[in-house]
C-alpha cells in the first residue's frame, strides 16, 4: 500500500491532462506527463490515465513521445483494448521522415505485451528491415526476436529468417550483431543460428569494426564453427590473434576461449595462447575495479588447473591488499597455494602468515588452511608457522590450526611428532564444533605421544552435559576408547563414566548407539576392540591423490569466460548453482565415464561389437587411452564398484621412480592416476585403462599389514564397468608384462 493519497493524485493528474489550457502550453503539459511517469516508478497505479496519455502521444515533440511510450509499454498489457488506439499513432510514426522517430515508434510497438499485437507489428517490422537508416534496421531486427518471443509456439516464418541471414551483410556492425542475436532466439529450438564457412569468415573479417560487447558475443557465436583442415584453422587463428591482446577483458577472455576450443587438437598452440593471454589476464587481476579483478582472478584459477607453472613467477601480483574485499582475498590465497615452488615458498609463507591475523575470522582461517595445504609439500616450514600461531591464543586461530594439523598428520606421517608436541603445549582448546572434533581425533589417534591427552579428554568428559553437538560426542567416544586401548590405566575410569552417561542419559540416538556398540565391543575383549578400532594412522598414498596433477586444458575450457569459474564450488553454499555450465561440465565428465568413448577412438566401437557378435573369438580387445579420467571421477567409481578380479602378480613393486613408471604405463596405454613413493610401505598405485567399450580401474598394493596376500608380492585388484571378463584378462596380462619388465630391469 504505497501512498494514501494515491486516488487523489490520479484524479488531479487526470484533470490537469484534460485541461485545454494546459494542453495548449507545451512545457506545462510535458511537466504533468513527467509527473505521471514519476508516480508510475513510485509504484502508483496510474493506468486510469491511459486514455489521456494516448492523446498526448499525438505530438511532434520527441521528448513527450518518449515519455508517453514509456508509459504505454508499462500499461499496455493491463488495457489491451485502449492500447489498440495507440497503435494507429505508432504506425503513423513508423512512417515519419525522422529516422529517430521511426526507430522509437517501432521499438516501443514491439515492446507492447498484449495478445494479438503481432498482426499489427509484422508489417512495420518488415518495412523497418529495409529502412535506409541503420538505426531503424537495428530496432527492426531485434523486433523480429521480440515478435517471436511473444508467440513462441507459432511456426517460424522462413522469409523473415532468410531476410535476417541476408542482413548479416549489412554495413552497420550493430545491425549485423543484432541479426545474430535475433536468429539465435528465433531458431533456438533448431539449435540456434547456423555458422557456416562464408558466415564465419565474414564475421571474422568484420570483428574489428564492432564494439566490445558485440565482439565478445560474436566470438561466442564463432565457437560453433569448425574449420576444415589445419590450413583454415591457422588462418582463423591468425585473424583472431590481435584480439587476444584486446583492450577489454571480456573480449580477451572470449578470444582465449575460442582459441582453446579451435586448437583443441594442438596442445602447443593452446599453451602458446595461454602464455600470450597471461599479460592481459594479469592486467585484469590488477584492474582498478574490484569486480573485474575478481573475474580476472577466477579465470587465472582456471588456467592454473592445467598450467600451474605459468604464473609462478608473478606470485607477488597475488598478494592481498589490506583494503581489498574478502572475496578477492580468498581467491588470491587459493591462487598463492597453487603457485608455490622451491624459490618463492619462503616469501609466500611469510605473506600468508601475515594474513592469519586478519580481523575477519573467515579470512584468517582460510589463510591457515592455505598454509596447511602448502605443508603437504613443505612440511617443516609450515609446521613452524602453525605452531607459532598457537601462541596467539585466539580462539578461531587455534581451532583452524588444530584442524589443519589433523589433515596434515593424515597426509604426512613424518609430521606426527611435531604436531603432537605442539598440541601438548597448546594451552587453549578450540570452542567450535569443527575444531573440537579435530582435537579429539588427534588425541585419540596419537594419544600415546601426547602426555596430557587423558587430562584434556577428562575436561571434555566432565563437560559433556553442556555439549550440544552430537558429532563432537561421537568423536569423544571414539577418542576415549582409542586412548583406553593404548593407555588403559589413566583412562579406564573416565571411559566408564562416559559410557555410563551416554548409555543412560543421552537422548541422541546416534550417540547412544555408538556408546552401546563400544560397550559391547569391550565385552568381547580388548583385542577384538583393538582390531576393529585401530586403523592406519595415516595414508601417505593420499598425498599423491591429493596433489593435483595438471589437467588437460579441455577440462575447463568449455566453462571459461562464463559464470562457472566465478560461482566456485564453495562461493554459495546455500544457493543452488544457477549456471548451467557448471552442471554441464559435470555431466560431460559423467558421460566420459559412463559412455564408451566413441568419437575419441573409432576402433573401440568395433571392439564393443566384437565380443557380442563373435561369441568366443579369442581376440582380446586392445587397450586404448581415450580421454583421461579425472581423479574425482576415479574416486567416485572406485567407491561405487566392487572388485571383480584379484590376483597376486608374484613379484615386488618396481623400484623405478614414478615418472618412469608413468611413462612405461603410458606406453602400454594405461593411465596412471596415483603412486606412492618407491620406498613407502604399504606401497599403492591406482591405474585405469579403457579396453574396448569398458573402463578398467585397478589398484596395486604391496606390503600392507592388513592384507596378508600383499606381504611379499604385488596384489592386484581390478574393478570394471561395464563388466567384461575378457577385457580384464587382456588388461591384467598387459599390466603384468609391463611391471615385470620394470622389476626385472632392476635385478
Amino acid at each position, binding site marked *: 500500500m504505497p501512498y494514501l493519497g494515491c486516488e487523489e493524485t490520479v484524479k488531479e493528474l487526470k484533470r490537469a491532462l484534460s485541461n485545454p489550457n494546459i494542453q495548449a502550453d507545451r512545457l506545462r503539459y510535458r511537466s504533468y506527463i513527467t509527473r505521471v511517469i514519476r508516480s508510475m*516508478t513510485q509504484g502508483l497505479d496510474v493506468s486510469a490515465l491511459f486514455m489521456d496519455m494516448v492523446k498526448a502521444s499525438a505530438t511532434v515533440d520527441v*521528448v513527450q513521445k518518449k515519455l508517453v511510450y514509456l508509459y504505454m509499454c508499462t500499461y499496455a498489457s493491463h488495457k489491451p483494448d485502449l492500447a489498440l488506439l495507440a497503435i494507429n499513432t505508432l504506425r503513423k510514426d513508423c512512417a515519419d521522415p525522422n*529516422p529517430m522517430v521511426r526507430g522509437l515508434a517501432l521499438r516501443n510497438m514491439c515492446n507492447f505485451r498484449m495478445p494479438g499485437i503481432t498482426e499489427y507489428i509484422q508489417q512495420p517490422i518488415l518495412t523497418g528491415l529495409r529502412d535506409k537508416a541503420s538505426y531503424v534496421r537495428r530496432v527492426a531486427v531485434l523486433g523480429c526476436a521480440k515478435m517471436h518471443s511473444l508467440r513462441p509456439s507459432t511456426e517460424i516464418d522462413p522469409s523473415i529468417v532468410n531476410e535476417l541471414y541476408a542482413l548479416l551483410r549489412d554495413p552497420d556492425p550493430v545491425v549485423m550483431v543484432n541479426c545474430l542475436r535475433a536468429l539465435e532466439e528465433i531458431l533456438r529450438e533448431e539449435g540456434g543460428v547456423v555458422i557456416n564457412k562464408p558466415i564465419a569468415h565474414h564475421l571474422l573479417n568484420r570483428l574489428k569494426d564492432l564494439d566490445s560487447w558485440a565482439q565478445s558475443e560474436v566470438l561466442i557465436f564463432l565457437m560453433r564453427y569448425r574449420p576444415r583442415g589445419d590450413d583454415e584453422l591457422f588462418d582463423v587463428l591468425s585473424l583472431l590473434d590481435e584480439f587476444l*591482446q584486446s583492450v577489454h577483458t*571480456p573480449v580477451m577472455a572470449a578470444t582465449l576461449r575460442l582459441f582453446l576450443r579451435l586448437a583443441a587438437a594442438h596442445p602447443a598452440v593452446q599453451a602458446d595462447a595461454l602464455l600470450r593471454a597471461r599479460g*592481459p589476464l*594479469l592486467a585484469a587481476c590488477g584492474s582498478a575495479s574490484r569486480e573485474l579483478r575478481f573475474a580476472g582472478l577466477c579465470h587465472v584459477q582456471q588456467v592454473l588447473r592445467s598450467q600451474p607453472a605459468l604464473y609462478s613467477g608473478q606470485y607477488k601480483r597475488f598478494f592481498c591488499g589490506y583494503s581489498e574485499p574478502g*572475496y578477492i582475498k580468498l581467491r588470491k590465497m587459493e591462487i598463492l597455494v597453487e603457485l608455490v615452488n622451491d624459490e618463492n615458498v619462503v616469501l609466500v609463507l611469510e605473506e600468508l602468515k601475515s594474513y592469519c591475523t586478519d580481523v575477519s575470522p573467515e579470512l584468517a582461517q582460510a589463510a591457515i588452511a592455505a598454509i596447511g595445504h602448502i605443508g603437504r609439500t613443505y612440511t617443516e616450514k609450515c609446521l613452524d608457522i602453525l605452531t607459532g600461531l598457537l601462541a596467539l591464543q585466539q580462539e578461531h586461530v587455534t581451532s583452524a590450526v588444530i584442524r589443519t594439523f589433523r589433515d596434515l598428520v593424515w597426509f604426512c606421517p613424518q609430521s606426527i611428532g611435531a604436531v603432537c608436541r605442539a598440541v601438548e603445549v597448546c594451552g587453549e582448546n578450540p570452542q567450535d564444533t569443527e575444531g573440537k572434533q579435530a582435537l579429539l581425533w588427534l588425541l585419540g589417534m596419537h594419544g600415546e605421544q601426547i602426555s596430557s591427552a587423558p587430562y584434556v579428554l577428562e575436561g571434555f568428559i566432565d563437560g559433556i552435559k553442556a555439549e550440544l553437538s552430537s558429532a563432537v560426542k561421537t568423536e569423544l567416544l571414539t577418542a576415549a576408547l582409542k586412548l583406553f586401548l593404548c593407555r588403559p590405566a589413566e583412562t579406564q575410569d573416565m571411559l566408564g563414566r562416559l559410557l555410563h552417561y551416554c548409555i543412560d542419559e543421552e537422548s541422541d540416538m546416534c550417540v547412544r548407539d555408538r556408546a552401546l556398540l563400544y560397550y559391547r565391543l569391550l565385552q568381547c575383549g580388548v583385542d577384538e576392540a583393538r582390531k576393529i578400532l585401530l586403523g592406519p594412522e595415516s595414508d601417505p598414498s593420499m598425498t599423491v591423490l591429493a596433489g593435483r596433477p595438471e589437467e588437460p586444458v579441455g577440462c575447463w575450457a568449455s566453462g571459461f569466460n*562464463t559464470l562457472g569459474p566465478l560461482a566456485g564450488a564453495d562461493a554459495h553454499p546455500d544457493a543452488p548453482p544457477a549456471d548451467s555450465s557448471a552442471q554441464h561440465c559435470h555431466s560431460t565428465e559423467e558421460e566420459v565415464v559412463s559412455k564408451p568413448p566413441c568419437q575419441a577412438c573409432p576402433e573401440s566401437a568395433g571392439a564393443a561389437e566384437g565380443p557380442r557378435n563373435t561369441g568366443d573369438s579369442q581376440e582380446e580387445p586392445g587397450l586404448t587411452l581415450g580421454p583421461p579420467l579425472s581423479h574425482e571421477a576415479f574416486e567416485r567409481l572406485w567407491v561405487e564398484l566392487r572388485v571383480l578380479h584379484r590376483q597376486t602378480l608374484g613379484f615386488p613393486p618396481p623400484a623405478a621412480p614414478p615418472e618412469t613408471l608413468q611413462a612405461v604405463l603410458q606406453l602400454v596405454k594405461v593411465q596412471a592416476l596415483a603412486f606412492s613413493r618407491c620406498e613407502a610401505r604399504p606401497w599403492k598405485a591406482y591405474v585405469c585403462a579403457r579396453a574396448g567399450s569398458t573402463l578398467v580401474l585397478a589398484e596395486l598394493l604391496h606390503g600392507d599389514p592388513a592384507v596378508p596376500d600383499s606381504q611379499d608380492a604385488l596384489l592386484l585388484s581390478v574393478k570394471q564397468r561395464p563388466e567384461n571378463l575378457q577385457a580384464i584378462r587382456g588388461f591384467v596380462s598387459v599390466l603384468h608384462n609391463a611391471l615385470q619388465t620394470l622389476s626385472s630391469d632392476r635385478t
Partner: protein
Amino acid sequence: MIGGLFIYNHKGEVLISRVYRDDIGRNAVDAFRVNVIHARQQVRSPVTNIARTSFFHVKRSNIWLAAVTKQNVNAAMVFEFLYKMCDVMTAYFGKISEENIKNNFVLIYELLDEILDFGYPQNSETGALKTFITQQGIKSQPQTKEEQSQITSQVTGQIGWRREGIKYRRNELFLDVLESVNLLMSPQGQVLSAHVSGRVVMKSYLSGMPECKFGMNDKIVIDKQGKAGASDEAGKSSGKQSIAIDDCTFHQCVRLSKFDSERSISFIPPDGEYELMRYRTTKDIILPFRVIPLVREVGRTKLEVKVVIKSNFKPSLLAQKIEVRIPTPLNTSGVQVICMKGKAKYKASENAIVWKIKRMAGMKESQISAEIELLPTNDKKKWARPPISMNFEVPFAPSGLKVRYLKVFESKLNYSDHDVIKWVRYIGRSGIYETRC
C-alpha cells in the same frame, strides 16, 4: 544478455527498475534486496545466484546497481557494462547519488532504452548517445534537418565514435597522464609489490576527421630507434629514460594492427573526453614517498609510534594533499601527537591517527611521533597491526612515462599540426599505498 537492470539506494529502495526480458519476474527486485543489500554479513561475491537467476552488482558511493540475467553470460562483460552505465550517467548528470538519480530518472530511462534493447547492448559511447537523448534540454525542439542528417550519418558511418562535420574555431587538445601508484612495503623497507596503473585521458576539440599519432618513451620503440638511427642519435635517446610497459589496452579508435607491427599509436579521436589508453608498469617505479614506521610497545598500556616520511623526487616539484593514516588499536584511550609539519589528529571513530600535509617539496623528510595510551584489557588477542596507508598527489608520472609527441594530421581541412594548441599534464596519485608496521 542482460534481463534487467535495477538501481537501489543504500536502504534497498528501488530507484530505477527496467526489465528487458520476460523471464525476469517482478520478485527479482526484492530477491536481490533481501539476499544481498539487507544481508547481515559482508558481501561474499559481486555475483550472486538466487533461484537460478544471477545478479551482478557494483556499488557507487551508496548506490547499488544490479544487472540481472537468467543466462550463463560472460561476467566480465556485464561488469564492464555496469561501469559504462556509470560513466554515461556521470557524463550526463555528474556524481551518482540518490538525489541525482531521483532528479534525472526520466533521463535514465531514456538512456537505458537506447543503451540496451531487448537486453542487448546497442550503443554506449557518450558522444554518440547525445544525438538520441532528448532530456536535459539538449534537444527540446523538433529536430532540424541538419540534425536529422547527422543521426543518419552517425548510425551508418563506419566510425562509430565520431560524427562527421565537427567544427571548432580553435583546435585544442588536452592530454592528461593520470597514474595511480600502488605499493605494499614490508616494515624493513623491502618492496613486496609495486605497480603503477595509468591512464592517458584526452580531451580533443578538433575539426573534421583528424588523424592523430601519439608517441611516448616506450622502451621497445626507443630501443628500436636506437638501433636503426645513427650512433649519436642512439646516444641521445639513451640519455632519456625509457619505460617498460607490462600491458596496455586502448580505446577502440586506436589501430591495433599498427600498434602490433610498429608499436605506433595512431587513431582518429572521438570528440570530447575519452580514455585513450590504459597501461600498467611494474619495473623501475619512482616511489614518491617512503614511509618508515617505528612502533614500540611500552608495557601493556602504552604504544610509541614514530613515522618518518621521505619525499623522493626533484626538489623543484611539489606534492599535494598528503595524508598519512596510522592505525591505532581498538582499546586506545588517548593519543598525544607531535608533528613538525602539517596537522595530525586522532580520529577515534576511524581508529587511526590522520596526519595531513598540504604541500611538500621533493627530497624532504618529515616526521610524526605519537604516544598512544591503551586501556588495559583482559583480551589476550594481539593487535593485528594494519598497515600505514598514504594518500598524495604529485605532478609527475611515477612510472616515468613521458609524452614524446602528439601529432595531428587533417588532410581535408586546412589546419596543420602547428595550429593545434596542445596541453599536457601529468598527475600521479596514490592507489593502495601501504607500508606494514
